[in-house]
């Protein structure tokens, strides 16, 4: 073992040789297999050694399949065909048995041969010269930049480029649509890609103009969706443009009348799209994105709209991103947000409005997180192993000992004493997570879950069967089916939510807090540390904790009630673009104050998200933050 590590080269184990032999119908003894394996290793290394010189002489850094085959050919060995693809070949494990293989998809040759959309417009190789350094010092252009004119264009292409950019950035909506459509399907514009990317990178210069920004984003979307374009390293540039729209405190957002929130949502959606479609192009892209989102989120100096961008960005990147970045940051971030939300001064009104936006976004993200977690838990119960393996590796183990009774009392104590911050690498089990989140959101969270069953026959009874409940194996399948429907049910939910019927969620809370603590005491969280009283209380009994909790958030409920409510209508602004928030006030206001007693303030917050949902979906479904997974 030691010497294997020392030598640092691939070894072909005996078993592989045997397997190969078996596959061609030869039975090998162990000795022969061992000898063959050793010889194969040696030949492999020899071939690798020989191929490296082809790489060196081709003045490349990357060894290609071609090089390897050349080496084989020159040593009178048949070349290995079929590995010339540019894409990395996925190396997959097979669940049953310790078997790993390279995926070998079948290609329909007829389809390939008769394909009409053969990519054209591969640019001509050419030489361009620029004076790089005058007299050895004057550095004319910044070092290490990309050459300005990556290629010269034919007249046709140039015309196309001008027309399309003009159409997209111009006034005519219809024309823009046509141009975007063509950009999305044209197979001959590979040569123009750098130009379009350059245009898109102009986002920074139009940060005052929401219209233009969103048009540029449309352009990105079209480029990304064009199947004939190989984005390659341009993906970085595109991503940075999109990130700009998501995260930067745009000039346009100074005016509260501008609905930059929509832009951010759209950009986040686009980001997730780019990532899912092309994330493999640039190694570590995902982590870079996460890192920059995290940076923004943890920077209290940034304006709230940036934070909002970070949250929706994370949300768009999937619940894993939320779990990895947002969830651990939540406790730290919460105090800042709360400070904003608690400030009722008039001067703070605008900021507070923004704060509620962020709150809503976080809530939505967190809700999704919980749902997905719940789903990932319940899926194994259904027995579909493959799915679990793929999408939720490593999540199942901590959830298995659910039914185990245990440290009921001890956990209680432990939680109070939880002083150790939980480090995040270990995925937090759902119940704990729910409890923590509940500590922040109170019933608003529970309500969101209650809505799902709400539309089902047993609407009012639904609450007890909430996520915490789904821990119980029996409920597993039921929950999974329900979860996705939550989104759809949003349309009707406002009605429900405006009624004080949400009380039933209380038991759910109790359940949720009690059950997890029984087995997961070790994963005490930072949240509990920061807010021990509510969580402890929540665990003990339903009523008081909520009171305490709400009070701490809204010291002056009656006074601020209309206000907070009004702002909560985050999607209203979107719907009537540019209209003042207040205008939407009357629409939403009447039913609420009348229906809600002061102590129900906790219920108002859910409205933020819930109110928005239906309208949002109604306006434009693709703006939805909920990505079908």
């Amino acid at each position, binding site marked *: 073992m030691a010497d294997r590590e020392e030598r640092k080269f691939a070894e072909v184990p005996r078993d592989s040789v045997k397997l190969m032999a078996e596959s061609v119908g030869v039975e090998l003894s162990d000795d022969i297999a061992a000898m063959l394996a050793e010889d194969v290793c040696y030949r492999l290394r020899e071939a690798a050694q020989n191929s490296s010189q082809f790489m060196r002489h081709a*003045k490349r850094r990357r060894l290609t399949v071609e090089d390897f085959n050349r080496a084989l050919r020159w040593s009178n060995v048949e070349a290995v065909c079929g590995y010339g693809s540019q894409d990395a070949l996925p190396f997959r494990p097979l669940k049953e048995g310790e078997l790993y293989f390279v995926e070998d998809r079948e290609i329909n040759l007829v389809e390939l041969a008769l394909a009409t959309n053969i990519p054209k417009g*591969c*640019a001509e190789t050419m030489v361009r010269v620029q004076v790089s350094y005058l007299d050895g010092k004057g550095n004319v252009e910044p070092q290490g930049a990309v050459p300005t004119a990556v290629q010269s264009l034919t007249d046709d292409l140039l015309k196309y480029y001008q027309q399309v950019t003009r159409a997209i950035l111009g006034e005519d909506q219809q024309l823009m649509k046509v141009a975007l459509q063509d950009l999305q399907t044209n197979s001959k514009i590979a040569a123009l890609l750098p130009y379009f990317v350059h245009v898109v990178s102009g986002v920074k210069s139009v940060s005052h103009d929401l219209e233009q920004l969103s048009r540029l984003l449309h352009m990105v979307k079209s480029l990304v969706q064009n199947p004939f374009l190989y984005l390659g390293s341009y993906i970085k540039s595109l991503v940075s443009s999109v990130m700009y729209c998501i995260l930067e405190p745009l000039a346009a957002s100074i005016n509260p009348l501008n609905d930059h929130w929509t832009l951010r949502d759209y950009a986040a959606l686009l980001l997730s799209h780019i990532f899912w479609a092309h994330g493999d192009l640039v190694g570590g892209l995902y982590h870079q994105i996460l890192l920059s989102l995290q940076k923004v989120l943890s920077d209290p100096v940034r304006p709230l709209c940036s934070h909002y961008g970070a949250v929706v960005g994370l949300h768009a990147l999937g619940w894993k991103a939320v779990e990895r970045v947002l969830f651990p940051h939540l406790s730290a971030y919460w105090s800042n947000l709360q400070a904003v939300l608690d400030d009722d001064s008039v001067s703070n009104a605008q900021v507070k409005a923004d704060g509620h936006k962020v709150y809503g976004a976080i809530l939505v993200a967190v809700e999704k997180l919980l749902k997905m977690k719940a789903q990932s838990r319940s899926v194994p119960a259904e027995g579909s192993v493959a799915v679990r393996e793929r999408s939720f590796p490593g999540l199942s183990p901590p959830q298995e000992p659910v039914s185990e009774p245990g440290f009921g009392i001890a956990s209680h104590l432990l939680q109070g004493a939880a002083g150790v911050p939980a480090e995040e690498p270990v995925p937090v089990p759902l119940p704990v997570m729910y409890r923590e989140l509940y500590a922040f959101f109170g019933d608003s969270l529970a309500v969101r879950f209650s809505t799902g069953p709400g539309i089902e026959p047993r609407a009012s009874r639904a609450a007890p069967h909430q996520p915490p409940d789904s821990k119980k194996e029996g409920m597993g399948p039921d929950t999974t089916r329900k979860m996705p429907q939550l989104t759809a049910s949003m349309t009707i939910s406002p009605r429900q939510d405006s009624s004080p019927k949400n009380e039933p969620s209380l038991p759910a809370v109790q359940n949720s807090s009690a059950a997890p603590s029984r087995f997961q005491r070790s994963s005490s969280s930072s949240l509990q540390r920061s807010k021990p009283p509510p969580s402890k209380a929540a665990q003990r009994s339903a009523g008081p904790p909520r009171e305490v909790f709400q009070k701490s958030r809204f010291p002056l409920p009656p006074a601020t009630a209309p206000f907070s409510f009004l702002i909560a209508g985050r999607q209203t602004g979107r719907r009537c673009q540019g209209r003042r928030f207040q205008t939407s006030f009357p629409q939403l206001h009447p039913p609420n104050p009348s229906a809600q007693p002061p102590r129900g303030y906790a219920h108002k917050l859910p409205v933020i998200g819930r109110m928005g949902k239906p309208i949002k979906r109604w306006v434009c479904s693709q703006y939805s933050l909920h990505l079908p997974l």
Partner: protein
Amino acid sequence: MAAVQDGPIELEPENEIKTETSNEVLGNPGDASGGVPPTAPVAAVATEKPAAAAADSTERQTLLAVLQFLKKSKLFESEEILRREAGLLNEIGDSQGSGVGGAGLGGGGDAEPESGDASSLLSRVAGAAATASANATPAPAKVTPVVTGGEDQPDVNVVLAAYSQQGDPVLYPVYYSGLKRFIDSVLDCHRAELSQVFYPLFVHMYLELVYNQYEKEAKAFFEKFHGDQECYYKDDLRILSGLTKKEHMKGNETLLDFRTSKFVLRISRDSYQLLKRHLQERQNNQIWNIIQEHLYIDIFDGMPRSKGQIDSMSGSLAGEAKREANKAKVFYGLLKEPEIEVPLDDEDEEAENEEGKPKKKKPKKDSTGSKSKKQDPNAPQQSRIPLPELKDSDKLDKIMNMKEATKRVRLGPESLPSICFYTFLNAYQGLTAVDFTDDSSLVAGGFADSTVRVWSVTPKKLRGVKTAGDLSLIDKDSDDVLERIMDEKTASESKNLYGHSGPVYGISFSPDRNYLLSCSEDATVRLWSLQTFTCLVGYKGHNYPVWDTQFSPYGYYFISGGHDRVARLWATDHYQPLRIFSGHLADITCTRFHPNSNYVATGSADRTIRLWDILTGNCVRIFTGHKGPIHSLAFSPNGKFLASGATDGRVLLWDIGHGLMIGELKGHTDTVYALKFSRDGEILASGSMDNTVRLWDALKAFDDIETDDFTAATGHITLPENSQELLLGSYMTKSTPVIHLHFTRRNLLLGAGAYNP
């Protein structure tokens, strides 16, 4: 100082003389190599009767063996010739009956007649050994060489059989660590020198273990001691570590190199005596045998060298160069330029001179050169190598050159050159080689997709000559006939040349811009016409990929080198090489002509640079010191110095006359693929895979050394650590590896590479 070979050398076994019998490497183009099938990988090695009176019996045996070999290879013609020459008619008849001749072949010959691989390796081995000893007496080119293959080279099996000696495998580590302890205990001044022994000893002991099939012991031995070796041997060690079976040894080239070429060590007499005494006292025959059989210890009198001195020179595959290998006189001076009066109104001259299209050039004596002016004492005779006669167009070009030179920027540390970078865009096919014409009017690129592309970088477009039918219609007496023969319809900015069937690894313009050479993985070198943009000749001679080729600065000749470890000198009008330079132990990776066209330098993957005399075919210099394959070479314009760049990112400077390393330029972090001196030699530009161009103060680098009173005789240099002082500037490209550099006649620096996003 003079005592080079005494005591220890006598201990060498007898067969050492055999391998070192003077072999002149001299392919004769006129003499078609008889029955040798063109594909047979037989290095044409010419034997010559040993100048020194070698033992008669040895010679005879060798001859017999050769004849035997020829017979076996069915080379009857050659056999006939050799037999006649040697007057051995009768004896052969005798020995025919007795089967395999006595010398060297010892039964191995018939053992595996079917192994084509072995014989190809053999031929390389033959080549490798052939130049091991630099020949003192240059042979006249008239000598009719006898084409043979692998004479006096025992079979692979025999080579390896030298390892068959039995020793207790358990004792190997004991011996080795015993020696290690001893060397650790000697005085500091000797320790560095004696430590050189470790690496070759280690390798040979390991191989002996493997050969005798003590796999486990071999592995243990490797694990235990490989950490002690110098880091610059790690590439070789990696290969070695993979080699654990006797069967693998047969086909392994690295291994054969170790075996066939003695590892050369330079050790002072004192240190050597110490070692010898120790080994004899201990009766440590195992190690003593290896030292005697596989190492060549070059003993010198005087101070032992320091660690730094040793490190700077070692690192090559087969140790350092023997000192006598670098003793030959090299005429590094420049040839005298023919005197051309610069006419004031050259426009008229131009019209008059350019009659008739330049045809195939023939080498003639340079008649234009008058010998009145001062002759460089170090320059070769003007006619030492026959050079093509200057055509009128060449003279015109020279005049242009001189005019340009008057406008040349004088460079120095204070006035650095401007840099223009030619970026190859959309080079998806992979740009592998670039060359500029001397007047910087054309640039050519070789690509991995087998194409060669030529671009005009001036507004003047590239045009082909009209077809034969159209040409016959032209008024040949008109003044502008050269214009008229061009076909305007074909004018374009670039031309593609198709013909190769593998990646193009090297290209070179002829100095007169009429031709372009390209060499490729398909083992051919092609000559292209830049008048018609078609291929004129495909030179076949190499058996493996050709890595580099270059035109002589005077045209007509060119050099090529490749994976088959030989460099070949060609003339454009001969389809076979004029000279074959063999001696490198690994691929020849780059080739360069000396400015006076009398020498060529070749850099190799064996981490040595060799300088070859074109006239005699001898290797006149071996430079060791690089720690990685050498990928670029450049002669200084005055012909005195050579710069070389390798994969280790270092650039080394060499004094050709003295055969010494004189400088080390550290700074690049990746392979140096391009080196070029400015027109007056003040600045050395280096371009690398690390996307930078660096400028170095060449004058200072050379001056510092020249003021030093280094002793050329010992060759022990201490390199000043002054890379940082010499570095004048480091310039980033835009994500573009630099693969070629060129100074225009006015000293503008041009770089080239493919944009690599």
